[in-house]
Structures are given as C-alpha cells and as structure tokens.
C-alpha cells in the first residue's frame, strides 16, 4: 500500500507569534519554520506502518512556498521515500487545499492519506474532512491509535467524551492527534541520504484546481489582555463571589 502524507510549513511551535505592525499578518521575519507538528506525527505513523509491513511506500506532499522544500527534506530524512511540493506563494485555504490533494490522490492512488488534524498556524481543522468528502471516502479524525487488517483500518479517535473506535474501509483519510506517536529524531546519515531522494517541485497551477471562494482576512490583532479582577479577603467571600458569578453551584 502506498501512503500519502500531507505536510505544511508553519511557524515553529516554540516561537511566540506576534501580529505585525499594520495588522496584515504576523511577524515572519527571522522566525523559525517547521513541519506542522501534527503532520510530523502523520509522517511518523506512515513510516511505522511501512516498517511493520502495512505499507510499502510513503510519499510526502506539501503545498506552499519554495522554502517548504526544507520541511519535505526533513520528512525524507525521517524516512519518507519521495516528496512533491506544489509551489504556491498565494494563500491556499482549506477547501482549495483539499481540492488540490484530491488531484494528487487521483494521480497517486494511495491506499491511505495521513494528515495532521490541524495546522497550528490557521487552526482550521478542515482539510482532511474536506478531502474525504470530495474523494467520497471515509474519514477518521483526531486519531490516537490506528490498526490495519484486510483493507480495513480501526481508528481510535480522541473525542470530547473520551475515546471512541471506528472502522473505515480503505482507502480513507486519517487525521492524527498528538498522542498517536512520538516522532523520531532525524539522524545525521539520514539527512545525507535524504539529499539524494526524489523531491519534485511543481507549480500549484499544474493541479488544475478550480479555485473556490476564499475567506477574506481583514485584520490580525493580539488577543485582548486579560484584566485583573478583585482580591477577596476570605474564603467565604470567594465562595460567595463565585456563586454570584454562576461558576459555582
């Protein structure tokens, strides 16, 4: 089985994101960029599947600027077999990304598409579900455990009520959550090997995506600062205040 993994280049999760001066976006100058952490977990899961014999090829794909090659190289150094970058300097919102991935899926014919549950930049949490809809295939989102038997995947999902299991026939789209695995460290010799692995860069337009209507972002602003409240002088006063506020019954 071939696994297609989608990865996105995002501002590293250790970086404190700040709104730029005119509110048109966030400060990206000098900021460290990385693979979206959830996508990295998706890559790791694909590699483990290959190592277990559940898959025989791992293809990583990204949509983004030319520099997103760095993140694809990292995925190759982790162990992916080949990579494709659909280069776009414009913003590609979730529906357009899902349509683009559908075109990739039609060309690559994977048995499984693994994606992060969401990108930590726009926090949309949409692409996997949208791709599954357009592909008319099952989806398993927020997955924290995954098993395969005879063309069927059993997925454990992290839902508000706890954990739930679903079964999906393959091919399917699986979006992964934090607890699925812990991605491996990239090893130095593998970085060298990754330099020789195939990485294609194609223009986004090549996918022939019919561009959907996109949301228009008019302003970025920092969240409102939390205002301090009052100091109470006794436990009784505290309990009373909490009750009055309705947060304590």
């Amino acid at each position, binding site marked *: 089985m071939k696994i297609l993994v989608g990865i996105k280049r995002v501002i590293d999760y*250790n*970086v404190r994101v700040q709104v730029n*001066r005119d509110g048109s976006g966030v400060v990206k100058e000098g900021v460290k960029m990385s693979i979206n952490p959830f996508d990295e977990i998706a890559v790791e899961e694909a590699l483990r599947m290959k190592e277990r014999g559940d898959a025989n090829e791992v293809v990583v794909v990204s949509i983004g600027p030319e520099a997103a090659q760095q993140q694809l190289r990292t995925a190759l150094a982790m162990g992916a077999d080949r990579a494709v970058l659909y280069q776009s300097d414009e913003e590609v919102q979730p529906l357009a990304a899902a349509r683009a991935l559908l075109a990739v899926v039609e060309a690559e014919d994977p048995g499984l598409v693994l994606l992060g549950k969401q990108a930590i930049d726009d926090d949309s949490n949409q692409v996997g579900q949208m791709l599954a809809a357009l592909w008319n295939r099952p989806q398993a989102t927020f997955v924290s455990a995954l098993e395969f038997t005879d063309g069927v995947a059993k997925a454990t999902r992290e839902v508000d009520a706890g954990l739930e299991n679903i079964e999906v026939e393959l091919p399917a789209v699986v979006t992964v959550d934090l607890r699925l695995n812990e*991605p491996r460290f990239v090893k*130095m010799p593998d970085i060298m090997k990754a330099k020789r692995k195939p990485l294609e860069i194609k223009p986004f337009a090549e996918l022939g995506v019919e561009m959907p209507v996109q949301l228009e972002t008019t302003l970025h602003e920092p969240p409102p600062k939390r205002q301090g409240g009052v100091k109470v002088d006794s436990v009784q006063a505290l309990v009373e205040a909490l009750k009055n506020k309705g947060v304590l019954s």
Partner: protein
Amino acid sequence: MSEQQGDIERDVMEYDYAIVGGGPAGLACAIRLKEKMPEAEICLLEKGSEIGAHILSGCVMEPGPLDELMPAWRDNPPAICVPAGRDEFRLYTRARSFRLPTPPQMHNAGNYIVALGELCKQLAEHAESLGVEVFPGFPGRHPLIEGEGADMRVVGVRCGDMGLEADGTPEGRPGPAFAAGVDIRAKTTLLAEGCRGSLSKQLIARFKLNRDATPQTYGLGFKELWQLPAGRTTPGLIQHSVGWPLDNSTYGGSFLYHLDEDRVYIGFVVGLDYEDPRFSPFEAFQQFKHHPDMRALLEGGEIISSGARTISEGGLQALPRMEMPGALLIGDAAGTLNVPKIKGVHQAFRSGMLAAEHLAASGTPEGYDAAFRASAAGRELHKVRNIRPGFHGGLWLGMANAALETVLAGRTPWTLATHADWDSLETRASARAHGEQAAMAANWHQERSLPPRDRLASVYFANTAHEESQPVHLRVADTSICATRCAEEFGNPCTRFCPVGVYEMVTGEDGGLQLQINASNCVHCKACDIKDPYLIIDWVPPEGGSGPNYQTL
C-alpha cells in the same frame, strides 16, 4: 572520557574538516575552506535548532571582512541591516545623562547595524551552495582524542545523543526515541563555538593551551529588540553609555541602536569581574531601561525578542594558543573580540577565513596561532590590549588609561594582566556599598513599568525550549556547597547572575535550602560556567535543537 556510554553503537562519518558552531567564525571558515579546496569534505555542526537560533550580538558590524568573504551580501542584505549614522557616547547618572566625546574606537561611519542571526542564515545558505554539509540541531558533545602526551591529537567530535531521559544520573538513560550521537572524524576539527564553548573549554584544559595566557575574562550581554510607537527613532543612530546604574567599580555599559520601521535594539553589557555578590546584571539592565531618557523612548513599545550571551573580553593577553594537534580554535571560542570597539564579528570572520587559508596553504593547524597574531586581526587586538584591563581600577582610571592607550595606539611598553572572573566576588561579609547597585539586588520590580516584568517574562521573548524529560545539562558537581558555604559566603550569586533564573534556592521538604535548577529556561549564555565562585557548574550542551530560538537578534 568516563561519562560516555561505551557500549552504544554509533555511526561514524568522516570528513576532511569538521567545524563546530554555526556563527560568523565557523561559517566564514567553512566558506573559505570550500573556496580554497572545492574537493574537501566539510561538515558544520550547530547546536541550535537552526542556524542563527543561538546567535545574539550587538551588532554594529565592520563590513570589510564580510565584503571579502561574501561580496554579494550587500545586494541581498539580512532582514535587519541599517547603515550606521551618528555616534553618541554618554555618561549616565540616575536622573540625567551627559554627552562625552566619542572614543575613536567607537566611531562607526561605514558600519552596519545588523541582525547577526539573520546574516548567519544567509552565510549558511551560501556555504551549503558551495557544498558544505550544515547540520543544525547537532551539538558537538565530546572531543574525540587519540594518543597520549606529545602524540595526543584531536581526531573529531562526538555529537550529542538524542532522546536521553533523566534518571538521576548526570548522563541519563536512553528513552524510547533514543538516537545515539554520531562520531564525526575529521583530519582537522575547528572549534567555532563562540564564547566559553564547551568543547573548547575541555580542549584548552587538555592541551594546556592557556599556559602562556592570563585568565580569560568575560562580559555578560543582554539585548532586546523593541517595536516602538511611530516617530521616536532616528534610523542609524548609535548610542553607547557608561555610568548609572553601575557603580564606579563595575565595568559595563549600554548600547542603543536605532533601526528602521520604528524599531530599536537596546542592550547592556556587564563585565563578569564585578565584585558585589548582591549584584544582578539583569536587574541592572532593566533599571537602565527605566532611566528617564530610556523610559521616554520605550514606553508604549513592545518587546519583539530578547536574549543574553557572554562575550570574551580578555583580549590578546588572555588569548589561548589557538592551535593543537588536529584542531584549531577560531573566533570567540578563542577570544578574538575587540572590547574597546565592542565588536567581535569582523574579528570572528577574519579568524575563520585565516584558519581556512592557513589550512589550505599548509595542510596543518601548526603555525596558525602565530599567523593569527601577526595578522590584521591580531594586530588590532595588540593595539587595544591594555584598555579593558585598565578598568580594573574603576571607571575613571580606566577611561584615563584608555585615552592614553588610544593616543599611543597601544605602543605602551607594558601589557596589563587580566584576572579571572570567578574569584572577583567580595564575600557577603566584606562587600562594599557599591552605590545603587545594592538596591538593585532587592526586588524593585514594583516600581518597574516597562516589560519584561521579571526574568521569567524575559525568557518568554527568547523562545527557548528544552525537551523536559532530558537530563539537566547544567551539571553542579557538589550541590551541598550551595546551601552551606555559598549561601554563607556569597549568598548564592547564581540566583542573580543567571539572566533567565535557571538557578533558584528553594526550601526543601526538610526545611533546609536546596538548589533548584530550572534547566529548561537556559538560553546558553554560559555565565554560570564562568562566574560561579566555586567553579562547580559545568555547562554541557543539552539535546540538539534545544535552547533559545532568537528572532532577528
């Protein structure tokens, strides 16, 4: 090398040249090596998560050496690059400031204020395009040494292991994701770790490279990048100061560089030979920011990023021998910075390029030390060698001596010795008043209006991160000293000199004081390795990719 896990199988990678450290010295050396010897196999290790992540410098750069190294840099300048404008040198008192004549070394016409981290990223790309293998996220952890006595030579470095878990032992144990560090074997290893490099420190001791040098001395520098309300800046304006809040006996001062887009770099450097055990360099910097002049500039602005790093201040007389069999020290790993100019970047470039040229010409590290001392970089250090040590007698004597040395261009017939920073502290019993510095030791944050609120808030702007399960990388040889002798004699100065609050004395469960190390705050400045009065703190590199992620500093 008792602390290495001998039974772990490691990959070995062979190179002609292994460079440890992706700062200006290491990158300049890599580029020049590849230019001189295109066939040479070269790798460059960097402990930060990416090139530039751990780079922090003033930085008003003399462009000459960079023009020589990468002439095209001016066509595609780094993210922050502002031509130097007017220079001002000021003396501060609590409420006022006075303009002083700018010392000749501090004239900056033709220089550039740059974000060195950004410049390093560009240099790394250039190096990679020439074929250098650049490995960010991989610290050099141990030197590989073969032979004994006169035959002893450096044969490479062992990279740090990944995925170690704390288990109470200094080295920890392999966790589930453990990946053993690779052994890099190289014909020549170049230590370009910057000030107080952890491998350099070991090799200087092992090969007794400082036998003929006076003790290296250091400064601790802080830097913040601010975004200010529109209209307050004069792009290119460069201000340096001495005086308040430091007392006469403490060496140091401020810098303030006006950038474009209503931004400024503001920073403070303190000589780590300060004497007052109650002194907190971080608090001094914050207090300086609250001087009426600075407060008026900064109020209403926001910090974009901040950090701290030590610099080598010992100059020529403290410069260790820069060569040993199989390896060279370059840049601030040796200590090539010019203190009176407060500039090290051009010197680092020069020493890196010179090392490459020397290796290309001679094929051996031997002779590099003499070549460096005879070079423009070495001559520059000779000229100013007596200025920084002249401040040992305080600010006024130092300034007078500096004037004399400057007029004579260093042709004075003597060379002043340096003194080690770790034994400069007065004991609590003997500590003098030190003017307002004593007040700074007390928490005065109540009257503080500018961010950051405290050191923990400051470290937030350094984007620092360490995998929390790893063993503590700040090794304290004997923590019993902390609660007993140190508490008694010096009042635990580590809790004050660390710029990010790594060291805390807390009340333990038995009611006694004990040392708490908040290793994950560490910004890799190395001040603790230098200033601890018992020399029991050993800074070792944590898991690769840990530490600050400096943004345009």
